[in-house]
């Protein structure tokens, strides 16, 4: 029998190790798997390569990706919009690395990883320091800058070669799931979540509801999901 439902987030995340790459769904505060992140922060996991669109706000007591950054668990952050004052301080101090990726390229690199593709050509970023090189990924001595990316003219237009992302783990938030791991998301909370699930070698999902789903109501089929936990009810 197929049953991907685990007893709790701690059990579902027990193989996540320091140094792992972890992609996390969400856009701003929408669709972020905060329970899974809390469970991850309960373990001694550090030096993560986190892949996520946003970096949280850097507020005291913040949940989500901002908590991972605040607790200094991230050595490299691949993202489009890292905006988090505390993390930026560590970036300018040369303690952490930022791989800045245009948002559509980030989405497509995750999808390519999940689809077994070797890379793709996108027109995005051509003629900018995110393609021609020069963006400072890590400050300090020596400074690390983004190397120029391979470019190619196809049908008269310049495209940039981008490679897939294939992280060790994905943390994903769904609205509804069944025991097969089939997922359905809710409105703007879908965003990067299905792509994160596709890309990772091991995908852990928190779902607000667990039940059955009609075949055409499923946004992401179960083979992309490994472990599933029910979202913790909000504390009163």
């Amino acid at each position, binding site marked *: 029998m197929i049953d991907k439902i685990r007893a709790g987030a701690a059990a579902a995340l027990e193989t996540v190790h320091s140094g792992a790459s972890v992609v996390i769904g969400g856009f701003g505060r929408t669709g972020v798997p905060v329970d899974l992140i809390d469970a991850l922060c309960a373990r001694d996991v550090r030096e993560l390569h986190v892949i996520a669109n946003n970096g949280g706000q850097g507020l005291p007591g913040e949940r989500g990706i901002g908590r991972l950054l605040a607790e200094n668990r991230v050595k490299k952050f691949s993202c489009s919009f890292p905006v988090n004052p505390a993390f930026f301080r560590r970036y300018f101090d040369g303690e952490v690395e930022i791989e800045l990726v245009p948002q559509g390229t980030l989405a497509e690199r995750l999808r390519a990883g999940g689809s077994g593709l070797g890379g793709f050509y996108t027109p995005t970023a051509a003629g900018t320091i995110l393609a021609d090189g020069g963006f400072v990924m890590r400050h300090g001595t020596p400074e690390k800058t983004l190397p120029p990316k391979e470019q190619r003219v196809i049908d008269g237009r310049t495209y940039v070669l981008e490679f897939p992302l294939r992280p060790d783990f994905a943390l994903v938030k769904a609205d509804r799931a069944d025991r097969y791991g089939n997922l359905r998301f809710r*409105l703007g909370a879908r965003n990067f979540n299905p792509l994160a699930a596709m890309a990772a070698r091991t995908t852990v999902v928190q779902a607000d509801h667990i039940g059955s789903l009609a075949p055409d109501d499923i946004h992401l089929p179960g083979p992309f999901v490994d472990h599933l936990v029910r979202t913790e009810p909000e504390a009163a």
Partner: protein
Amino acid sequence: MPLLRTELARRVAGDLEDGWCVNVGIGAPLLLPGQPTPGKEILYHCEHGLLGVGPPPEGEPDPDITDAGKNPVTLLAGAAAFDSSVSFAIARGGRLDLCVLGALQVGEHGDLANWLVPGGNPGVGGAMDLAVGARRVWVMMNHVDKQGNAKLRKACTFPLTGVGVVDRVYTDLAVFEFTGGALTLRERAPGVGLEEIAARTEATYTVDLWNRGAAA
């Protein structure tokens, strides 16, 4: 008189065409879905994966319905939700009639710089994808920066978002259009003189004002 932010949003909204699918970037463009567009149905697209976004909610906000700036908005008739890869397929695939972005600088051949002040905090979001993908790119910005420097420049000195991508620039002082890569002044804000615009613009441009009676 320079236009206020909401007056500028109303001005831009006036030029939208019925049926357009329009992405609005963070900053001032996020005011657009709140502007009335009588007789015109506009589908506003949010880069993370929503289409058919409307004004901020009057009641309790839904945390799963936000715009690109993470502010609560509403969904209108015809709204659709999808993942971020489909959202950028719409953008890169040429299915956006228009994208309205804020800018730090615009070069006189249509280059756009809107994501990084050198030495400042980096954050690019979806701007580079939108700039290359949308059928039209309009910029909505203050004519000068907080230090009074011209933002319409001979060349951008800040890192670029896209090369030669801008079609129009709406500022608090004027409307400019790029035609064949050259910049043309098309409209002055009420009470703003040609001299004031010239004094606050570094880019070279010609003056060929729209006839207000004709279609803009």
